[in-house]
């Protein structure tokens, strides 16, 4: 498959269970190596010896990547140090504020609700201001106000010229933000192109492609 996402664009990827959506994001993030072909970030291939291109990637996964015994602030501070940010404390404060988690910054992660955990994970993904944001079912666990807030956050990322790739079973949640949509089935693109205006028509086409 070929994938080309430009700055300020968002590709929303739908597909049935086992289609390879999460694998696609793990390949793009450099967490897996492709069995064939290659992934280039800004034309560069991340290698063990030159991990620089990974700096451009932010991944919001099914997993939060957070340590349960640390607080969100401690988790983010550690992440900031890994990314070599010049002001880890300042970056941590800003990221927590952006997702509305400042009040719970010092609560151990194991005591946070699912929605708050997701917000902490979002803060972790955005902490180093990545140019490319990979989102795996990002609305999971968010209540309606949090989902609205997150949509506004994604819109702000697009406005800042970031490239977004979102995979989800429910594209309706991010339909208005997407500039392109694709359907992944059996590890291949079944459909790819600009976002159509009619979501219902897309759902009908999706059902036809995936379920026959």
């Amino acid at each position, binding site marked *: 498959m070929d994938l080309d996402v430009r700055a300020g664009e968002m590709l929303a990827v739908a597909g049935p269970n086992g289609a390879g959506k999460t694998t696609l994001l793990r390949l793009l993030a450099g967490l897996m190596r492709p069995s064939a072909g290659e992934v280039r970030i800004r034309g560069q291939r991340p290698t063990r010896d030159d*991990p620089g291109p990974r700096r451009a990637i932010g991944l919001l996964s099914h997993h939060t990547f957070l340590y349960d015994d640390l607080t969100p602030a401690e988790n983010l501070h550690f992440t900031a140090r*890994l990314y070599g940010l010049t002001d880890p404390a300042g970056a941590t404060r800003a990221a927590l504020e952006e997702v509305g988690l400042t009040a719970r910054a010092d609560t151990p992660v194991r005591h946070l609700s699912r929605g708050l955990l997701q917000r902490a994970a979002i803060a972790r993904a955005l902490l180093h201001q990545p140019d490319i944001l990979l989102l795996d079912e990002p609305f999971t666990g968010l209540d309606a106000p949090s989902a609205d807030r997150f949509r506004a956050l994604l819109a702000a990322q697009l406005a800042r010229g970031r490239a977004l790739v979102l995979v989800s079973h429910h594209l309706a949640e991010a339909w208005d933000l997407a500039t392109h949509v694709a359907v992944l089935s059996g590890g291949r693109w079944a459909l790819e192109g600009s976002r159509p205006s009619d979501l219902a028509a897309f759902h009908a086409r999706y059902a036809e492609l995936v379920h026959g």
Partner: protein
Amino acid sequence: MAEFLRIAFAIAAKDIRLELRSRTALLSAIVFSALVLVVFNFARDPTALAAVDLAPSVLWVTFAFGAVIALNRAFYVERENAALDGILLAPVPRSALYVGKLFANLAFVGVVEAVALPLFVLFFNVDLGHALPGVLGVTALATVGFVAVGTIFSAMVVRTRFAELMLPVLLLPFMVPPLVGAVQVTAKLLAGRPLSEMMGWLRLLTLYDIGFVTLCILVFPAVVDE
């Protein structure tokens, strides 16, 4: 190099903070080491074998068992919420992760040994006296070697189903050379033998450390990459 060490220290500091919060692995390793010493103390027949003859072996078996328990936690903490992926996503050399884990593990095993050594002196009535600096030196030398190997095995087994069981099975054979060397040097130190008699074993321990630390740093990226 400064950047590499900065990342390694950040990872080690995070691990130490996590362990100070939970204290599970460290306390388990310390209690287990104390139990090993108690069992050896009561199991030996004092009329058949003098304590000083058995002491070096007991000391190093205790250190080895305590270390295995402490090492089990090294990558286990990275399993929760796929935290290891979070580190692998970051623009850090994989080998810096290994070195950070090695630093943290050396600190944990060092604490276990620091608690076990006075208990060993107490139970076996060994007069360390003049031998103490030498014992501390050989402890540091041997510990670096088997913790280096244990750290990489801990990463290898963490994704297996029986990680806690697999680690000792893989690690104990690799612990034999440093343990034999350390037992020999400790026995000679306690017997007040001259340094020249220990040089061969000290060279072996040094070579083991240099060889395995270098090898593990080189191999580690392949261990954690999918």
